[in-house]
């Protein structure tokens, strides 16, 4: 090999190889991270990715998924041109079309349906990525509609609601204020948000104590926890209440804080009184000594921050459980205090960066008064009250039942149908629509049901503005040639704004004009960030000092931190919602002897997020087959060995996949990752098991059974070595 060949093979950037490093960002997961990427590019093609050193948050690092951006972007099923359906819905019978024809068809159909019915008979749905959400929501409004809904109907928003009900704002651990005890409840930050994992690990190195509470043994329980509590699935609320009772019984609460800032202390005290240690141990399975120890640590270590994650909200009692957990922060007076939990002030795309933008105005200024109830409004009144969006978990029901009115069309941006419980019912509903169009990077199930499909592009193939904590504004530029004839989602939205006769001049002007409207007053920063490819700090950046939120006025209806929610009390009593974070059993009703196990769908894997990484060969190679995690002793009882084909059944469906024996699963629990085409875990989740407060599905608590497939060759459970086994991740 010549020297030049060697350098080229090693992808060394420079004039000798013609390889250039260009700045961009990774959009594979949620905006909480969006790590900075150095793209190694030659002749417009991506050769390799690396983190951008010095980038806000990620500082040169990437996660497992982000490291696979090249294969993600060049996935074999990237859509290369607009497509128009020529055969039955659900099939692959499509022909290619020009952008003009495809967009024309969409405009024609949507305008016709709007004229014949109502703008709200058209649903605007978006999944990932989240970068264009303000634009899509504004388009929905400018077209006269309100039925906008997102994948946040199952993610993040329930916890956001719980915090808003209790604190008047979303809350996060104040890591800058140096907590001395971190409680990660239902949290494996190493895997679900690796930057938070870095934060936890760095805190531990500095001597911060950590309590992990999780039904699964995870990297966090093994590596981080000074104390690890493992409740039975769905009983976290009882555990939180029992800890509250211990704190109150021992007079460890911050009484002055409670007297000054908190509403509903006595009602709350009466409610938690029923959860004595014996009762809590019986329900949760956690030894009472551990419950006591955790409560004592939380009460005695100052400052302490108790936080939780979305997983905890995927239960029928999810929102209340989240409120119950976060209430512990109130008891010990660690709200808006250094090292406790701090309020989040969103800057842009649900990220707080320490300065204000006109995002809300941008989204809402073209909204007209509502005439019809939105999707889910009647079934999930609290969701509607707090979000004023559709709750997508009621979409299937409304399409099929036409109650209270027919949904005729669907605009599906990045729609992952496997995110919906009992996905096959949604697909049946999609068949019924008069018109549907989809935009996506990849050829998904949603595309197969659409009449028109538009190819979108990845973050590397367009520019994007992001605000990061610390006041930073990033504005990337297109780093690589586009794959096929794809366009950015916002280019598509701007074009539709024209063709749909919205008269929305700003939206029609495109991304940059809208960004300048939203980030008004930061024009120099935008220009500099775009020119240099390096995030720039806004001159309007102003950190919010701890204590300022309480001083300024708590943003709940009562102006107090609400253990008793006046907002819930104001909801129609027919909905049966309790203003206190009461615990109730979230098990789905069925014969418990027939379904002795509890399924948790969606337990995270480091190399997957929802459905979009399963078809990236590098990522898939880390765990090539869909697997169900089962405790080795449960497996032995059922004569199941590692890798055996098994069937997991619920009242909704049955699924065939492989068994993975691991101590990560508790006795009686099964864990599966979701989003696989050939083993869609959410098909097993009945479409009726929703949290009445949030509408979130009970992905993480469904009764099930497991058996080894009879057709498989007889394998011996004794083959398992007692001393443990080496298996690849």
């Amino acid at each position, binding site marked *: 090999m010549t020297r030049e060949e060697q350098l080229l*093979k090693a992808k*060394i950037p420079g004039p000798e190889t013609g390889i250039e490093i260009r700045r961009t960002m990774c959009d594979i997961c949620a905006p909480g991270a969006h790590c900075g990427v150095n793209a190694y590019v030659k002749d417009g093609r991506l050769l390799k990715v690396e983190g951008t050193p010095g980038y806000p948050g990620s500082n040169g*690092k990437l996660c497992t998924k982000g*490291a*696979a951006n090249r294969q993600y972007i060049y996935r074999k099923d990237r859509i290369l041109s607009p497509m128009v359906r020529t055969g039955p819905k659900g099939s692959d019978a499509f022909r290619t079309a020009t952008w003009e024809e495809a967009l024309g068809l969409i405009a024609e159909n949507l305008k016709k349906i709007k004229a014949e019915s109502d703008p709200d008979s058209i649903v605007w749905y978006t999944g990932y990525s989240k970068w264009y959400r303000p634009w899509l929501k504004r388009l929905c409004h400018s077209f006269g509609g309100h039925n906008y809904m997102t994948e946040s109907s199952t993610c993040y928003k329930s916890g956001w609601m719980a915090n808003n009900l209790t604190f008047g704002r979303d809350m996060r651990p104040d890591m800058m204020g140096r907590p001395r005890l971190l409680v990660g409840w239902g949290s494996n930050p190493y895997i679900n948000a690796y930057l938070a994992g870095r934060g936890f690990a760095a805190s531990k190195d500095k001597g911060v104590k950590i309590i992990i509470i999780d039904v699964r043994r995870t*990297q966090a329980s*093994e590596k981080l926890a000074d104390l690890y509590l493992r409740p039975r699935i769905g009983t976290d609320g009882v555990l939180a209440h029992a800890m509250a009772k211990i704190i109150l019984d021992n007079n460890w609460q911050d009484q002055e804080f409670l007297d000054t800032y908190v509403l509903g202390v006595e009602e709350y005290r009466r409610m938690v009184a029923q959860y004595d240690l014996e009762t809590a141990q019986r329900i949760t399975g956690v030894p009472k000594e551990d419950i006591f120890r955790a409560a004592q640590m939380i009460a005695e270590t100052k400052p302490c921050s108790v936080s939780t994650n979305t997983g905890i909200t995927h239960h029928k009692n999810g929102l209340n459980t989240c409120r119950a957990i976060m209430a512990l922060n109130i008891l010990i007076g660690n709200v808006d205090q250094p090292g406790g939990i701090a309020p989040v002030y969103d800057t842009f795309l649900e990220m707080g960066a320490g300065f204000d933008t006109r995002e809300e105005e941008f989204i809402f200024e073209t909204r007209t008064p509502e005439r019809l109830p939105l999707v889910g409004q009647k079934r999930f009144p609290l969701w509607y009250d707090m979000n004023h969006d559709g709750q997508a978990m009621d979409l299937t029901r409304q399409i099929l039942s036409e109650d209270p009115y027919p949904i005729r069309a669907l605009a599906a941006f990045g729609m992952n149908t496997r995110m919906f419980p009992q996905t096959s019912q949604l697909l049946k509903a999609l068949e019924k629509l008069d018109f549907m169009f989809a935009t996506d990077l990849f050829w998904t199930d949603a595309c197969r049901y659409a009449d028109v499909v538009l190819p979108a592009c990845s973050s590397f193939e367009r520019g994007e503005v992001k605000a990061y904590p610390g006041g930073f504004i990033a504005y990337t530029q297109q780093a690589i040639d586009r794959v096929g004839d794809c366009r950015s989602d916002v280019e598509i939205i701007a074009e539709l704004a024209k063709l749909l006769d919205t008269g929305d001049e700003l939206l029609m002007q495109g991304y940059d004009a809208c960004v300048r409207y939203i980030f008004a007053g930061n024009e120099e920063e935008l220009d500099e960030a775009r020119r240099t490819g390096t995030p720039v700090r806004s001159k309007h950046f102003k950190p919010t000092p701890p204590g300022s939120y309480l001083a300024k006025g708590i943003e709940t209806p009562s102006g107090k931190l609400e253990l008793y929610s006046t907002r819930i009390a104001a909801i129609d009593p027919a909905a049966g919602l309790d203003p206190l974070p009461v615990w109730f059993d979230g098990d789905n009703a069925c014969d418990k002897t027939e379904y002795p196990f509890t399924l948790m769908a969606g337990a995270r894997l480091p190399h997957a997020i929802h459905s979009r990484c399963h078809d990236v060969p590098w990522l898939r190679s880390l765990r090539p087959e869909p697997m169900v995690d089962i405790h080795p002793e449960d497996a032995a009882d059922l004569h199941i060995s590692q890798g055996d084909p098994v069937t997991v059944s619920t009242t909704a469906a049955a699924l065939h996949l492989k068994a993975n024996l691991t*101590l990560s699963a508790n006795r009686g629990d099964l864990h599966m990752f979701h989003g696989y085409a050939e083993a869609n875990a959410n098909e097993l989740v009945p479409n009726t098991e929703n949290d009445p407060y949030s509408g979130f599905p009970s992905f993480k608590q469904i009764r099930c059974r497991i058996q080894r497939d009879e057709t498989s060759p007889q394998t011996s459970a004794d083959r398992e070595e007692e001393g443990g086994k080496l*298996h690849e991740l």
Partner: protein
Amino acid sequence: MSYKITFDETKCVACGACAIACMDQNDILVEEGQFPLRRTFTRESRLHPEEKFGYYSHACEHCDEAPCIPACPSGCLFKDPETGFTVFDTTNCIGCRSCAFACPHGAPAMGLDGKMLKCDGCNQRVKAGMLPACVAVCPFDALALVEE
């Protein structure tokens, strides 16, 4: 000068980011049965009451006295004097796997062309003043490039 890629077990969670970065750097064709040159493992010890989880990342150790070097009958393996990494030129590789048998760590594997393939420490990158791909990506700093 001699470099080593060190591994800190206390920091690793076997997330696999290093393996993916290796695949990206080395154009690993997993679809065709190739494996990355660095891999991660989770080991569960199930002996009661000493149940525990271990998380590991593993690749060529670039041993000082690398046994693969004298084992190769074709002289394909050698030390790069500039970096100390155990590197290779497989022009004359006959695919006999003597290197793999000699290696106590199981590092050398066979590439799709029937010739030996293993981690070269991202030798060219290190010479160019950059980190090995796996070290650069590691989200939890379990891997490091150290100069000895």
